[in-house]
């Protein structure tokens, strides 16, 4: 089995109001339950906004920390899910279900270098 990272990209700025988001989150949670039931869900969750990010970078013996996201853009990763799947089509199948719920937000699917066990 392989592992895939499903990253959800969303636009910067104020998120939509709860009356818009709540029904969507209910469907997302139902999908997570479906993934868990199928043995596909590994880990994941929603993230606070990019303004809460801190970037750490070492140069020589100095470690520099900066407030804010690594890349400033119009969009950021709002959350992610790691799934276990036999191949890309199976991972894309989960991504497709996810994308239908959170349309028009985009999901990027990327394979992990290692499969089960998640060794280095």
């Amino acid at each position, binding site marked *: 089995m*392989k592992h895939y990272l499903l990253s959800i990209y969303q636009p910067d700025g104020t998120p939509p109001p709860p009356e818009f988001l709540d029904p969507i989150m209910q469907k997302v949670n139902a999908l997570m339950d479906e993934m868990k039931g199928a043995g596909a869900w590994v880990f994941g969750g929603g993230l606070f906004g990019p303004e809460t990010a801190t970037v750490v970078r070492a140069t020589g013996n100095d470690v520099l920390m900066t407030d804010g996201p690594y890349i400033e853009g119009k969009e950021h990763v709002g959350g992610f899910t790691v799934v276990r799947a*036999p*191949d*890309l*089509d199976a991972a*894309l199948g989960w991504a497709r279900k996810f994308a239908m719920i959170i349309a028009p937000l985009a999901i990027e*699917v*990327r*394979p992990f*270098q290692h499969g089960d066990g998640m060794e280095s």
Partner: protein
Amino acid sequence: MTGRPAAADVERIFREEYGRAVAVLIRAFGDIDLAEDAVQDAFTVALARWPATGVPPGPAGWIITTARNRAIDRLRREATRGERHAEAIRLLSRDEAPEEDAVGDDRLRLIFTCCHPALVGPAQVALTLRLLGGLTTAEIARAFLVAEPTLAQRLVRAKAKIRDAAIPYRVPDAGELPQRLRAVLAVVYLIFNEGYSASGGDRLVREDLCAEAIRLARMLAELMPGDPEAKGLLALLLLSDSRRAARVDGAGDIVPLAEQDRALWDQDLIAEGQALMRQCLRINRPGPYQIQAAIQAVHADARTYAGTDWAQILQLYDQLLMVAPGPFVALNRAVALAEVRGPLPALQEVERLHLPQYHLYHAIRADLLRRLGRIDEAVAACDAAIATAGNAAERRFLERRRQELRS
């Protein structure tokens, strides 16, 4: 079999059997590069051996068996990691000759992998020509007018993505199949079109690409007998290709449909295309390729240009616009419209389209303007067509038309 095959025989068998052998080896080893290298090794052995020994009965099976042994040898040599060695041993103990059905399925699996939507379009085309057609990187680069290193990199990247992202080697299940098959047919159609009307270079037609596209379409029609669009695509390609000898004169200049010597049309290809169309009609699930093939079949039926059933062609274009709307279909429809209702309504349709980069848009506009006696505008449109034409033969044709406008 004469027993003394020339290199040309090996070349022919290579063209026919390469994709089959690579597809079987990929299933056996799960490694595209290994499969390609092994099959190429096997053909090198064949080229050295067959002139002396003669072509063995069942050359495809011979190539596959030889390639498999080569691949196992290679895995053993490179077996620094225990698992690879174990894999080679496991494969050694398998039975040898693959079943025909399984082989067919392997080629089908492979083309669905090559045309997977997770791969960018040009990579799909390059992979299909490379793995199923056995074209070299240099040949594909030449055919699509890209630098060889660019194309080589495109192939390396696509193969790495297939491996790393685990793009499956599988015919999609029924739910996904229609959409995925459309992508496969589109790749084959694109290969044919590039061959039929080259987007660059000196010549109008690249026969090698046309032949490869027809080979692939034939394979799809055989392996997916229940799908009318696969049959429709093959019919479309055969009917279009039937006019090849008449489309270009001895000097390599374009001969338009109206002026073609219809005695040069290949009646065998026409008959095969029409037989496929009859099968499609029985299935009765029309789609874009079947409708385009039906349009070509109407042309093939006409003994003269004047005798063409343009009303039927116009009706088919109307149908095509319903299932596959787009400016290119609308432009072709306008040509039929001009024959049925005259150049003015056709020109009005054309001018509603916006295809400034497409030479045929300007060329068709120029012709309609000429027929309306609006010569200055026709010359300007002809100039725009010349400026956007891709290959030298098309430019020469348009320049001749431009001269005729002024005479």
